[in-house]
């Protein structure tokens, strides 16, 4: 299992040419080979969603995808959300509405919410709650996460 394959991950617009074992997960590759530790690992079996990143625009649990499967794809992580020192509206909304406490699940929630709203800006409140139910948070009780995402959604729609 130790033979390594060269691949190129494009993360937040930057190319990382790395060599990985076939079994290496995308989550581990992002964190250890690309050095982007903002993506967190909470369960490694696809339930908690802490490791959610965007792959070609779609929210993906990076613990359930092999790094090799993401070869050549466009990956976005929490580190790529802010532009030129300006926070993404979703990041700002999480701060404004106290949508985080320990901050461990936060990158996953941010990427999930950004991914969904970019794809479906007019998503209903009910469907949004459905989507947000795919990730776990143990600190906030979710109320303020939902509030933050709704507020950011409004802003992203330009309202």
């Amino acid at each position, binding site marked *: 299992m*130790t033979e390594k394959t060269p691949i190129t991950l494009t993360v937040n617009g930057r190319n990382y040419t790395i060599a990985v074992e076939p079994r290496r997960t995308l989550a581990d590759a992002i964190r250890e080979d690309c050095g982007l*530790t*903002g993506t967190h*690992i909470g369960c490694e*079996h696809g339930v908690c969603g802490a490791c959610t990143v965007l792959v070609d625009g779609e929210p993906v649990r990076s613990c359930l995808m092999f790094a090799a499967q993401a070869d050549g794809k466009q990956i976005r992580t*929490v580190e790529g959300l802010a532009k030129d020192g300006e926070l993404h509206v979703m990041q700002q909304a999480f701060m404004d509405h106290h949508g985080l406490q320990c901050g461990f699940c936060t*990158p996953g929630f941010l990427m999930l919410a950004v991914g969904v709203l970019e794809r479906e800006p007019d998503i209903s409140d009910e469907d949004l709650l459905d989507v947000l139910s795919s990730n776990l948070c*143990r600190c906030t009780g979710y109320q303020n996460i939902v509030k933050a995402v709704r507020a950011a959604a409004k802003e992203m729609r330009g309202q």
Partner: protein
Amino acid sequence: MTAHTKGSGMTWVGRAIRRLEDPALVTGQGRFTADLPAQYWVRFLRSPVAAGRIESIKAPQGALVVTAKDLTGVKPILAVLHKFAYRPVAQPILAAGEVRFVGEPVAAVVASSEAEAEDILDDIELVVGDTKSVIDARAALQDGAPQIHKEAPGNVILDGRIKTPDFDTVWAGAHRIVTMEARSRRQNATPMEPRAGHAAYDAPTGRVTLTCTTQMPHVMRTAIADVLGMPESDLRVIAPDVGGGFGQKMSLAAEYVVLVWLARKLKSSVAWTEDRRENLIAGFHARDQYLTLQGAFDEDAKLIALKTDIIANVGAYSCFPTTCGVEPLMAMAEMPGPYDFRHYDARARGVLTNTCTMAPYRGVSRPTITFTLERLMDKAARAFGLDPVDIRRRNLIGKFPYVSVAGLTFDEASYKETLEMAVKAIDLPAFRARQRDARKQSRYLGIGFATFSERTGYGSPAFAARGMEITPGWETVILSIDPSGFAEARIGASPHGQGLRTALAQIIADEIGVAPQMIRVVHGDTDRAPYGWGTFASRSLVISGGATSIAAQKVRAKLIKIASHMLEASPGDIVLEDGAAKVAGTDRSVSIAKMAREAYTQTHRFKGEIDPGISETGTYDPPGTFSNACHIAVVEVDVETGRTMVERYLVAEDAGRIINPMIAEGQVHGGIAQGIGNALLEEIVYDESGGILTATLADYLPPTAHEIPPIELHHRETPSTESITKAKGLGEGGTIGAPAAVVNAINDALAPFGVEIDEIPATPQRVRAALRSALHSAHSRASGNPAGP
């Protein structure tokens, strides 16, 4: 941003300012333990059986595998109480000969990557001779049950009793006795960040830095140095960003001891991050209890006496530093709740079993005892034909200070007032009408109440009452202003998501007239922070906040003294605001930066009247203060599937003076979500042989956004007389009240079926089983036939 201070009318305390912690955390710049690179990675070989003797461990050729035999001179973990017939039992760092639960660490595999270590782990041949195990606490108490430790005969590690004089006479004369048999199933705190440690050896000094996900960095340093027999000054413990703890991360993990040992042995850096399975099977458990509770009432439904028997399954070892007494003793001391009565007979036992060790989890026993007591009050209400609100009105305490039957002093609070606030806000008559209408359509709505106290911010006397060998309590804060004028508070508390940095900065800001954003609060590094007990038990805002306030008042006094020298004004005329000292009513002022520079570099100007530098220490060790709340849950139970949905959740709470309302509400929200999880979903399930059936997050179920309804909060502030900042703690109340409110609501919903559910979590299976058995007995009664199987 403008700074305000005392006298200006505006304060930072009381304002919902954004958290200073957040910018790093929302941009992926948080620094968690698992983010650190290491030379070596460790995986632990864990016991596959609940009880047995290790016969052989055969590692693959050339692999670095450490077992108990290698740890010569390393002491076991020994948590000690000096009261309540406590029997100390030793926990070896790696299982030595005997294994006592599935998941117990047996060996450490060291390799250059996690993957490689896992490969080696797969190739180790471990032979364990199974012996008989016992999983259930009542079974462990029976004659002939397997003995977990020879030091604790009969598997009883602790046996606490309280009995007030004349109890038996009062009991015999009671008008009515109401009985409640409660069962609380085993749970896991499940922080989103699993446990992780990273130990790095520093060759020039011979020191080791252990970075780990702990709530108690100094206590870890003391404990690990003790166990390894090394000077404590050779060990530095860092708690970086910690991804939630909820109590699970306050106990000493044997794995961290191994990491420090390895770092010294290999003279390198060694890391371990547990996977979720390890966390669920071996990362400490909680709340596995049987509680029997009987209440004696007089003719007016007034509670006069309480009798209880508490059996806490503490697992295979006793957690350090609190000991396994934490659950049974908390239950015994606080079972009386916020009710006024004078006679009490309680027994609380800690029972060893072949299961994962129990440790504190948010609320510590109070979610289970509040559930038990509040179910009892509802049963009593039904027995007397009273409304659940009425029976609470008759029994809640209302005069303060109140000394409870178990000897606790309750400070001023608002038990009755918050009950009335909550009842008014929920509009009970409207709900009852809706409930009646819904039942006509075979929909079952229910309402449940919980009134309770939350003991918070208690110092060393409270822990000493338990006879703890390690008695936590006080906190120290050192507040300094450096020569550039920048304020930095170093604290012994160790927050991990609570927002304490922000709250303490607000307290300091009001004293010294500097905006909170300009104040740095440093914690979680034993080389930087003063010795302290960390963050747990809803203590930090009260105790560390009090110590902060003391230190900040001293700094304020010093700044005023310096300013009065520099501005040649009377100290009484100096005000501190906007980062400067000003002479009231004039335009004369001097900046804190300039004062600080002089305090360090121009001390001769003060002619020996002012000590050099600006650094003051505050230490605080309060007796404790009680928050209180009334929770109301409105649920709908689907009688076909047994599924409960919480449709509305209302809280009227009083936690004294609120420092930051946004943070306070967040604590209540999060606590309630955990309490709802505890009430409906979360359960660690062992099979009969001690294997865990719930080792993934698809089996052990923390609630998602779907299960948590909007939470409606009503506040009231009764300033604490036992806390310098007048604040009370509120980190655990949500979790304490929710299981009681939710399960009372389920029972209310199912009242037409004559069903009583006295077990948490009230899973769909349990609700269905209760309904089936109720329908079955109703059918048997109707047909006159005895109930079949």
